[in-house]
Each structure stands twice: as structure tokens, then as C-alpha cells.
């Protein structure tokens, strides 16, 4: 899709504002994560605990919103119309998987699909928006917005560097993304909620805790067991869906054409 010819281009001040917002969001996210991992605050219920929970919640959420505000005005219309479809797919396919008691989430297929088709900025925006909208039905997902943004960002990055040129590369990229997402999201689970919200994942965390691990360590190990497998499957399914799209449709995304995401044959 070519950029709109009727509207004025963004001014230098607007571009600078978006860059500042993006940098502030990234710094806030990285700073909070490093602070939590280095200091590992104890006493999650009393004293400092409430402050850590509130600060972690606020910092992760504000960072996600800043990144969204930085990215949103830059997205082409083709990506903007794809994002609502992806958000609905996250919810519908997530519910379909959840209804059959399969121990997977698969609730980020839409986010990864947007990352593959429209790039990492669109993927990150989809992740944040998906969490914000889903929080209207399940408020506990709100501080995981930054993790969801990372899923979309990593999907776009993987596609840009050739993860869709060979079908077996997509699940490998998913595995790597799962490790990173698990590591980034575990401080939220540990310090905001004091653990996980699922019975199965709670049992795994309890097992690690009884072996002498700290809460953050136990939650991180649980995330490293669950997330890489889940993301590998999600990346594979999303890649197969992209391969199933008619070339006329996949080729209409500038990101696909520019970075030869599907290899030479996919860009004709």
C-alpha cells in the first residue's frame, strides 16, 4: 500500500516526539526489569512489597502505552486494518484452544501474524492493543502488555531476517522468542501477583519453590518451560497461515516486499 498522497507528511517535531516516546518506553521497560532482577526485592506482601507491585505494574503498563503511542501514527493503513483482525483472532483462536483442555495458550497467533506480514512495529502495537482490549474482560493481563509487545516485535524481527524463508526456521525463532518473552514477563507474575494465575503453572512454580528456589527464580523457570514451546507452535501456525495466503495478498504488504520475507518466490 502506498502512503496517502493527500495528507501532509509528519513534521520533524512529530517524528522527534515519537522517537522520544519510543526511547522513553524502552528505557522504562529495561530499567524496571534490571532493577527487579538485580535487587530481587523480598517481602512481597508487606512493606516494600506493595510498592514494588505497584511500581512494576505501572512501569510495565506505561512503557507499553508509550511504545504504542510512538508506533501507532507511523503504521500504514494496510497494517491498521489488519490489527483488529489479529486481535479478534487472538481471542477466537485462544478460546478455541482453551475450550479443549490442550495445555497451550496459542493466544498470540494474531499478534505474530501481524508481525510476519506488517513488521515489528505493527506486531508490537498489536501486542499492546491486544492486551489492553483483552483487559476489559480479564484485567489481570494488563501488566503483561510489554511482554505481548515483545512477542509481536520479535515476530517482525524474525520475519525480517528470514525466519519465513524456510518452514523449519519459524518454530526455531518461536523458541528463542519464547525464552525472551518468558524472562521479561516473569517479574510481573512474581512481583505483581506473587506467582501465576493458572493451577497447572502454579503447581510447577510450587515444585520449584519447594526445591529451594526464590519466587522470581521459580516463576522464571516455569515461564522457560511453558513459553518457548507455546511460542514455537504459535510461530509455526502463523507461518503456515502466511504461506497459505495468496501471493497477491501477502505481496500487498510493503514489509513482505521490502525485506523479501517469503524469499524470492513469495515476492512475485
Amino acid at each position: 500500500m502506498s502512503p496517502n498522497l493527500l495528507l501532509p507528511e509528519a513534521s520533524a517535531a512529530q517524528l522527534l516526539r515519537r522517537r522520544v516516546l519510543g526511547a522513553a518506553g524502552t528505557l522504562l521497560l529495561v530499567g524496571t526489569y534490571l532493577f527487579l532482577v538485580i535487587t530481587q526485592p523480598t517481602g512481597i506482601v508487606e512493606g516494600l512489597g506493595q510498592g514494588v507491585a505497584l511500581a512494576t505494574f505501572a512501569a510495565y503498563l506505561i512503557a507499553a502505552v508509550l511504545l504504542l503511542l510512538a508506533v501507532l501514527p507511523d503504521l500504514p493503513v494496510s497494517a491498521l486494518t489488519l490489527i483488529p483482525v489479529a486481535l479478534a483472532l487472538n481471542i477466537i483462536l485462544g478460546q478455541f484452544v482453551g475450550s479443549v483442555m490442550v495445555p497451550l495458550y496459542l493466544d498470540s497467533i494474531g499478534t505474530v501474524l501481524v508481525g510476519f506480514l506488517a513488521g515489528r512495529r505493527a506486531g508490537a502495537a498489536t501486542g499492546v492493543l491486544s492486551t489492553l482490549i483483552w483487559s476489559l474482560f480479564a484485567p489481570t493481563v494488563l501488566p503483561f502488555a510489554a511482554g505481548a509487545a515483545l512477542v509481536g516485535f520479535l515476530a517482525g524481527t524474525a520475519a525480517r531476517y528470514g525466519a519465513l524463508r524456510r518452514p523449519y526456521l519459524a518454530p526455531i525463532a518461536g523458541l528463542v522468542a519464547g525464552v525472551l518473552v518468558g524472562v521479561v514477563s516473569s517479574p510481573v507474575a512474581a512481583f505483581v501477583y506473587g506467582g501465576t494465575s493458572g493451577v497447572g503453572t502454579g503447581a510447577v512454580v510450587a515444585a520449584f519453590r519447594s526445591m529451594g528456589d526464590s519466587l522470581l527464580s521459580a516463576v522464571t523457570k516455569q515461564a522457560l518451560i511453558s513459553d518457548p514451546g507455546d511460542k514455537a507452535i504459535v510461530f509455526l501456525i502463523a507461518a503456515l497461515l502466511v504461506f497459505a495466503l495468496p501471493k497477491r495478498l501477502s505481496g500487498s504488504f510493503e514489509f513482505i516486499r521490502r525485506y523479501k520475507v517469503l524469499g524470492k518466490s513469495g515476492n512475485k
Partner: protein
Amino acid sequence: MKRRITQLHPFTVLCLAVFTVAVATAASVWWLSCAVIVMCLAIGAVAGKARKLAALSGAIMLPTLLSLLMIHGLASRDSSPVIAAWGPISLTRGGAEVAMMLALRTAVLVVVGLLCGLLIDKHQLVAAIDLSPAPPQAGYLLASTLFLLPQMMEKQHAIGEAQALRKAGTGRGLAGWLQRLRLRAVPLVLSSVQDAHDRSVHLAARGFPARGEHSRLRQVADSQIQRGVRWVALLCSVLVPAAILVPFGGAA
């Protein structure tokens, strides 16, 4: 009373929710958390949504409570008295208290958040975002998702029925489930991406996103008092928790 609650500006409801969650989390006292939950249920009852609020909250909080009991109650390393024991597994009093406090903290967020979701009219929220300084894309994305979701649910249901009619995807076990997932997901994604592509052409032709002032069919009722309440609530969401948590003047 019901009309007054549902006619509040969506941002006013959200700011009050932020304030309530921030203060209840910072205070972390069981009676305040319980009072907030009871108050939310009362507001829900006035708005005629109490049953739905209780059901949705229970569905989220029950697995969370069980999970927290396992993590802090069963795997607790404190030396408090044992409440119950099942072979090598035991539930300590200290561990159960920690789990209950964390569950109450989460319950406040869940109940307040769900009450917001039930009280706020989605159309009003979209209109309020459009009228705010947020990028115009944000309102479009929220509106589009909320209106696409039921449509795509219906489409997915129709695809499932059509596949069942031609007796496709009737296998059992994991292979059958994967086949059903493929038979539903592929047509749904292909048709939805095609629709999105068609929509993008029309939107681009109409000069989306529109910049500058433009008229809106739906107006969101707002007032000077509500604007004041929003600012005070946001300010207090930072100041009150800071006053509770930061030890001033040697209080530590």
C-alpha cells in the same frame, strides 16, 4: 442512580478505578480490600450487573487463589503452625495468610477492572478516545476490534458448521483436534485478511486517518466537575500510595 452511574464519562470511571486499585494495593489491609470488593458488587447491583460481575470475577479468581495457595501455602518455608497435611505436603498458617493477602490484592484489581468493563459503554469509550488528544488510529482500532469480534465469532461458527456438514474434521484425539483447528483457522484467516486488505484500500482512498477538527455524531457527556474528579483521582493515585509506602520523617 443507575442512569447516573452509566452516564459517567468513560475516562472518569477509569481514573476512579486507577485510584481505587492503587490505594487498596498500597494499603494492603484485608478489610479495605474486602470493602472495595463489596462496594464494587453494590455498584454492580445498582447497575444491574452484580451477577455477571460475581461470575466473571469468580472464574478468574478461583484458579488464581488455588495457584497462590500451592505456591505460598504448600511450598512455604516458614515455621508457622501446620493447618493441614497430606503426606509430605502441608499447608502452613503463614503461607495461607500470604496467599490470601495476595489473592485479595489481585481480587481488587479483577473486580474493579471487570466493573469498569461492565459499566463503560463501548461506543462511548470509542467516542471519548476519538475526542481526546490520543492518535486517531487508537479509536479506530478499538472500535473496529469490538465490532469485528462478534462478526468473526459468527464467521468461525459458520465455518465450523459448514465443515461438519461436509463431514470434515471429525477425527478424534490430538490429530482430529489439529485437523479441526486447521479447517477452521485457515478459511477464517484467509477471508479476514482479504477483508482487511479491501478495507484498507477504501480507508486510504478516504484519507484515513483524518487530522484536525471534525464533527462527530455521538457526543460524550462531560462536565467541569468530572474533569476535576479525573485530575484529582490521578494525582491521588500517585500521592496517596507514596504517603502510605514512603517512610517520612523517621517513621521507618
